[in-house]
């Protein structure tokens, strides 16, 4: 899925964000990336989605070589990914349904397909009855679940969550994390960048520590997926999304 070899990135202001970093992530893995601010976590994600380009080394994602990939091919790489943002990035004037549908509309899906898949995605994140609501009418946790539904709507093989629990309370954080685990168990590779060590300890899985642009630790524990009533309802519909 992901293969990084001796990757370095220096920003124009001279900051060395990533330094000779090598990393392999297999298909279907659940990976936490942890580290203090300025450690290079965000740059690593940016390299994976080709928002930034490595100065040297190899970056392979979903079989694409991102170092040599021409710019015009980048959108097609991103169609194999889903991204969950810390600040949710929901469009206030749109309903929950339209926020999720938006991700399909802008890459040209037909309304028929959209009408079939969006309710499924909302059902998966437990918001089937809130499609007509506006984002500001929802709690932080619910908003992040909408963001999650939008991230999985295009059936990505890689899901990147950048501090997905940064703006929600601990209980809701747990809920969102369980959903991410559920998505991973359906075969999607999930990378979660977080500051929240407690949450990481609770879930286990592979934990990669980054500091100074380099990997300082890489440990793997079995992924603990505490099944709750809500998480149990997070089952795949007849035609799965992930």
């Amino acid at each position, binding site marked *: 899925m992901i293969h990084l070899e001796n990757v370095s990135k220096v920003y124009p202001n001279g900051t060395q964000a990533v330094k000779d970093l090598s990393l392999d992530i297999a298909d279907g893995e659940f990976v936490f990336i942890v580290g203090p601010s300025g450690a290079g976590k965000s740059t690593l994600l940016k390299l994976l*989605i080709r928002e930034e380009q490595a100065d040297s080394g190899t970056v392979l994602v979903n079989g694409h070589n991102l170092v040599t990939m021409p710019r015009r091919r980048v959108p097609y790489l991103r169609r194999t990914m889903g*991204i969950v943002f810390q600040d949710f990035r929901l469009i206030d004037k749109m309903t929950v349904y339209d926020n999720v549908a*938006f991700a399909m509309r802008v890459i040209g899906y037909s309304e028929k397909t959209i009408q079939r898949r969006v309710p499924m995605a909302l059902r998966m994140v437990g918001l089937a009855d809130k499609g007509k609501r506006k984002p500001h009418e929802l709690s932080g946790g619910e908003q992040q679940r909408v963001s999650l539904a939008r991230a999985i709507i295009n059936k990505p093989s890689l899901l990147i969550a950048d501090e997905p629990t940064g703006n929600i309370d601990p209980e809701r954080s747990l809920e969102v994390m369980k959903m991410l685990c559920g998505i991973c168990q359906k075969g999607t590779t999930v990378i979660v960048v977080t500051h929240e060590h407690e949450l990481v300890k609770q879930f286990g899985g592979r934990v990669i520590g980054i500091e100074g642009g380099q990997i300082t630790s890489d440990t793997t524990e079995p992924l603990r997926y505490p099944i709750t009533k809500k998480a149990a309802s997070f089952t795949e519909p007849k035609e799965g999304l992930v």
Partner: protein
Amino acid sequence: MKLSGIPYLLKEGFRNIWANRMMSLASVVVLLSCLLITGTAALVSVNVQALIAGIGDDNEITVYLRPDCNDTDSLALGAKLSAIPNIETCRFRSRKEVLASYQKTLGDNIYAAMEGEGNPFGNEYKIRLQDLSQYETTVTQIKTLEGVDKVSDRSDIAEKLTRLDQFVTTAGLWVVLILGVVTLFIIANTIKMTMYARRFEISIMKSVGATNAFVRIPFMVEAMVIGLLAGLLSSVVLIILYEPIRQAASNVIGMIRTATLPLYEVWLPVLLSLSGIGLLIGLLGGAVSVTRYLNKEGGAILGT
């Protein structure tokens, strides 16, 4: 690019205009002013050219006789004029007829006061030349005749009109150029503001793999609609005002009525060209702004 998404993006373009209506309105007004000036300059120019052509066709020269040249002397002069080889026709107009032609302009009271001894005009002859290239020689010959005050023709008017046309064209071009740059800036700024206001949407579009071409569509639609709207409005204003202005000008100079272009000949070119220019400016302003935004801040997805 899947075509099924196009209707949605077009709709988004129109939605942008409404969501950003004050800035859109400002852009339309500025572009409208620019196009009105452009259209006016173009219409004045084509009409002046038509006038010049009309004057060329009508090569009648007026030979003014001195006021003290009485009717007998005038008739004798007429015979001498007819004897000049290059003069094709020679028509006499008495000073009374000349004054009568101004009756309407002068009003009845002034006209009455000028009649008889008070008539400031002299007799005159209207002549046509056989060969216009011999104009200077023929006029010199006419001027040597006793009783001739001056010779007037429309070549000086034609020259003045040509100069006016050159001035209108040059000044018009500069005005259009300057206003064009201002308008491009305004449209580009409107689109930039729209893009900034919708930066989240753009980052989401980019994160799910929308191509730059797809991201561009709503913003380009917005810019083009602003341009087209300004083009249509300016042409409608010009079409409405054209005939009244032409009529007013005809009241001052009579030949404007016959020599200038009637509305049915100009309305379609005005409509098509101004709408086209408006659309083009919108397209250009939008393209500059969208491309610059997407190449810079618009490329960011995760932010700093």
